[in-house]
């Protein structure tokens, strides 16, 4: 079994915030089936804060846990704060990820940022990513 932390297994077993927001304010997608992981994040923004976030994930245990963790970390944060969430932080919050999973499965923050950027673009605002 991959060397997953208890926290990873917790998020994998009980992933939070699964789903797709209807008519989202922002949408971000990363990955593809060839590499084995795909994430689709949708967000609802209110007063410059992430009021709601949901995701759909095709991928391994790490990818699912990462998605879940990112959704929890993002919820309620301002967009600027959320843009500062890095893949590294996510891995840390999860109690670490196996070395070989760091690159391919740890894309949750990227997907979130894409969703935020999508929102900002729609708003006509240009933002700099923190990743």
């Amino acid at each position, binding site marked *: *079994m991959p060397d997953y932390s208890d926290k990873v297994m917790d998020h994998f077993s009980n992933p939070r915030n699964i789903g797709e927001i209807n008519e989202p304010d922002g949408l971000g997608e990363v990955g*593809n089936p060839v590499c*084995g*992981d795909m994430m689709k994040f949708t967000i609802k923004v209110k007063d410059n804060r992430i009021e709601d976030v949901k995701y759909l994930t*095709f991928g*391994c245990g790490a990818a699912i846990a990462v998605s879940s963790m990112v959704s929890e970390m993002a919820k309620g944060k301002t967009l600027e704060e959320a843009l500062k969430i890095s893949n590294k932080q996510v891995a840390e919050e999860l109690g670490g990820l196996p070395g070989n999973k760091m690159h391919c499965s740890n894309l949750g923050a990227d997907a979130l940022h894409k969703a935020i950027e999508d929102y900002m673009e729609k708003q006509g605002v240009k933002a700099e990513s923190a990743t």
Partner: protein
Amino acid sequence: MKKINLDNAAASPLEPAVLEAMLPFFTEHFGNPSSGHELGNVPRKALEEARASVARLINAEPREIIFTASASEANNLAIKGLIAANRVKGNHIISSVVEHFSVLNQLKTLEKEGFAVTLLPVDQYGLVNPEQLDQAITDKTILVSIQAANPEIGTIQPLDDLVKVAESKGVPFHTDAAAAVGWTHLDAKKTGVALLSLAGDQFGGPKGSAALYVSKKTRIRPLIEGGIQERGLRAGTENVPILVGLGMAAKLAAETLAERVKKSSILRDQLKESLINNVPYLHLNGHPEQRLPHNLNFSVEFVEGEALLLRLNMAGIYVSSGSSCTSQALKSSHVLSAIGLPPELAQGSLLFTLGRQNSADEIPYITDQLNSVADLLRKMSPLYHQYLKEVQNNA
């Protein structure tokens, strides 16, 4: 909680009779078969009995059996050993795209060293075409290496036909039969192969027990040089207890092969029916009939293999997958891509290999669990949601 091992090709517990046969050779009969005194006598006899049992299982002569510590070693000894002994005759090797890495990775190295390697394609079921083999052979071809059966999708190659083609052109044939021996009727002599690799741990023997059949007519060079154990073809003190275990497993397999094959095929078919009838979006990989009696390989559409595997693990069901996330090298199965499976189906593949300990009572639980696990993961899959939308739009 139930614990159901459906990953017997990865590992099975030893058959009790096998372990029992081995134990005295760790303690009472600890001697070295090469010893000049009587401590070597019982171990030496036991070793030769084991060799005879392995020979009987594949209809070979005892002296045609070279013990090794793994099927990987047997494959490396076969290919590197034959090439080293036949270098002058040519530089072309033919194999297939669905071989085990212990064949394929050697061939990559040999290519760097100047050998020409042809990897034959396979059809959607994983079958190599004898005609394509025929066309690929040149007067520089010194070896054909094609597996007897694929460990992942279970497809059994038309070995007799393939060997006949090579034989008619005088090219020696190696078959990696690690997945097949103990599960199919394999007659080394009749088939006419020059070299055949087998793995004890695939049919009830211990880890570290394997062998290479080297037909009397075939000359190879050793990979591990040193003492003259194994007729000088594989140096090193013989691992007597492990090889006694191999011998016992081979004896049991030979005695009960027909029965095992039948029993396993029936169980396999029952499991297949149950899964296909109850779990949606399932695709069988490999040949529908010409397959190992203990092997099932499915792709579960829209979901990824490791996630399936982990969720099944939580339910006490142990399987493996060809997804890139479950491979140590993080590449999805070369076999599934060779049969033309699209990436998302390759990523969602599940491999079930049955063993002695499985039984039909397990099927409802397995079916149930796979169904709910697949359902759960599907519901969070962007691919599934996309599919649903497409269906909706088309309606």
